């Protein structure tokens, strides 16, 4: 049976012209606005659960509340007690999963979460001010420096937030269950209105 290769689609409506990259239909827009909101849903997302003090935890190397980028460029997020989230390039979920599959003392589960979550990136000097309209967490450098991760309510949706600055500019990855993605995007976009927010297309990573 010959099928056209299936096209994956993000839950976020693409702004402007679209293109296909890595099997995903994504926005081809490029914005250089001071505040940008971009769909990052195509990135591979892997959920890992393992005992807190075990080998998997040691290998992942971050604890709940912080994130690091490993030698492969994967962002490893300590997203909860005994929970990690791995974010990598589109299509690499299986590879990410394979990297953490080690024996451990307790139950370990690794789950490709790519299609279950919406992921977006908010970047710009006013990103914190924008997010502060929707999220009750203190986003100051003092409390939430680069590579801090937390889960809280953003626009009334349980959202994983990772501060992951880009070239010294404040930037946040926001991540929620897929069906609420458009709601979260719309709320962020509305909040960023006074700072001249623009949608940005998909560019890796």
């Amino acid at each position, binding site marked *: 049976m010959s099928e056209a290769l299936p096209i994956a689609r993000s839950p976020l409506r693409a702004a402007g012209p679209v293109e296909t990259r890595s099997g995903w239909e994504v926005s081809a827009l490029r914005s250089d606005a001071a505040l940008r909101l971009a769909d990052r849903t195509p990135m591979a997302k892997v959920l890992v659960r393992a005992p807190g003090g075990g080998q998997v935890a040691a290998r992942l190397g971050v604890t*709940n509340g912080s994130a690091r980028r490993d030698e492969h460029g994967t962002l490893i997020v300590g997203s*909860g*007690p005994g*929970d990690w989230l791995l974010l990598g390039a589109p299509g690499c979920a299986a590879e990410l999963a394979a990297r953490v599959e080690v024996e451990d003392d307790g139950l370990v589960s690794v789950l490709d979460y790519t299609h279950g979550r919406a992921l977006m990136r908010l970047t710009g000097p006013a990103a914190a001010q924008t997010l502060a309209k929707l999220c009750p967490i203190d986003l100051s450098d003092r409390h939430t420096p680069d590579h801090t991760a*937390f*889960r*809280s*309510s953003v626009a009334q*949706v349980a959202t994983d937030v990772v501060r992951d600055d880009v070239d010294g500019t404040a930037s946040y990855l926001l991540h929620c269950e897929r069906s*609420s993605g458009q709601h979260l995007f719309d709320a962020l976009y509305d909040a960023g209105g006074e700072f001249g927010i623009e949608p940005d297309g998909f560019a890796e990573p």
Partner: protein
Amino acid sequence: MFQIPCPHCGLRNVAEFRHAGEQRRRPDPQTATPEEWRTYLYTQANDAGWTRETWYHRFGCRRFVGVQRHTVTNEVRPADTGPAPSVASPPAGIDAGAPDAGGGAM
């Protein structure tokens, strides 16, 4: 908006949590008398003062968290380290009579 000290996430607004009831023991379901069982189902201490209770961190770590709360002032302290909080009442959203139940943010 008082705050609850989550052992995993730090101080968080109470709005991130669901109250899961006072900490209480579940009677042995094989041997409980109707009176014991229904006391467990329906009767809480309902004290005006310090109470041990369980909260579910719905918007955070999704863990059931034991705390002590003063029910008059809403001051909250971490629970003493001790046995895990005992059985939590089911979330209100599953009340089968409520036509608008469920379907929360996540």
